[in-house]
């Protein structure tokens, strides 16, 4: 995604979860979203097997 698309994602997601992003912080937030999504591309593309489940720690 380019900066504009990430900016739009930031604005829409922030609105969806009710998180105000002050204008002065928005460029830094966009940079960080870009960083995380960028370095996660390989992880997102990975085909996990169905039995590779989340490791739970919740013990009722």
């Amino acid at each position, binding site marked *: 995604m380019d900066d504009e698309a990430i900016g739009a*994602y*930031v604005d829409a*997601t*922030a609105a969806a*979860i*009710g*998180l*105000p*992003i*002050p204008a002065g*912080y928005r460029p*830094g*937030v*966009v*940079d*960080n*979203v870009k*960083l*995380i*999504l960028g*370095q*996660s591309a*390989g*992880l*997102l593309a*990975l085909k*996990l*097997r169905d039995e*590779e*489940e*989340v*490791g739970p*720690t*919740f*013990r009722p």
Partner: protein
Amino acid sequence: MTDIFNQSALTLAARVRTRQLSAVETARGALARISATDGVVNACTQVMATEALRDAADIDARVARGEDPGPLGGVPFVVKNLFDIAGIATLAGARQRLGAPAAGRDATAVTRLKSAGAIMVAATNMDEFAYGFTTENDYFGPTRNPRSLDHVAGGSSGGAAAAVAAGMAPLALGSDTNGSIRIPSAFCGVFGLKPTFGRLSRAGTHPFVASLDHVGPMARTVADLALAYDLMQGPDPHDPVCAQRSPEPVSGLLDKEIGALRIGVLDGWFRQGAEDSVLAAIDDAARLLGPAPRVELAESDLARAAAFAITASEGANLHLERLRRDASAFDPATRDRLLAGALMPAALVIQAQRFRRRYQATAKALFEAFDVLLAPAAPGPALMLGEPMLARARLGIFTQPLSFIGLPIIAAPIPQAQGLPVGIQIIAAPWRETAAFQVAAHLERQGLARSAVAPCRKTPTPAADRP
């Protein structure tokens, strides 16, 4: 007589037990060292002089009555300020927590060290909410590296590591989510243990990323590190992650020969981007440990990305309400990252958590052929103060994949002929801390891995100041 601040925890405890030294003298020695050095180092956020001298007098009274003061009787220690200390607010490095209610009781790890007779002397500085690798805290100021004051101490347990390196105390408690014990231990030239995920209770510590948080000790000798670790082991009903495992003490096993241990050196991801001095330290260690072939831990790049994404997302959710209310109350170094973390798509975060199981299986297969693996702690020695955020975040490239799957790891300091020390990670299979301790003790006996009190001067420590 050697100054109190140079002595190991074991030495101080032995001298207090045999009445060569009083606990009040050791506490005064620690407080005097803090007074002499913390003006430049800035490791401590709160010095507990009154409480320390009161606790020390209690230890002396026990010794006077002929009672055993405990294995750490009269030994000073410091704690990262995300551990609860009864009677004061747990800051977790955050300005916005200055007015938080005082903790009602000590964290479990603190309680266990105090029960062994240790004297808490100070709470120490950290990156805000533990989200950082340099302890350049905007409100409390940066902690400076006692071995070179122009450099960072590492983080987020930077105050704790710096206090041990500066001789303020022989022991410290820190926490490690992505490298926050190992990076500052490496940068400050002390030993640090990040135990197996779930080995030590986190009860009474301010959380950061519940699925990745660990606590552990830091010290200047392997024997001190082992003793502190042994004393903190055991189940705790107050931490749901803490394992139902009986203590498996390592202190009596440090002299055991390492001949039977199969050692490997992590290749690929764990050598890319590391400075020559760090790679040389790994290779020196490998030579002292016998045959140590290079081995790959596949998909470690993805493990680092996964830990990074989980950290951003879970850390942000912990603080979501506070971010909604007033993002400006956060440290500029954490604020934008937390805001970004709150916006991560579920597809990524769940994928990252599922990948944890896959990477765990990959590591497990590797540990069928190896007992201990070596890797750099950080890409190089400590950064200068004031480096940009991207350089700071990169410090965790070698630590993040390994804490992601909860492996027990000792960060061991390797002093350099010139300049600052580097650190190596001594990595064992889950629940096999003993193997990591035996290798660390061997490298210490061989003189490769070692620590000493730093003089707290502005230039890097010259060779003459090292043992």
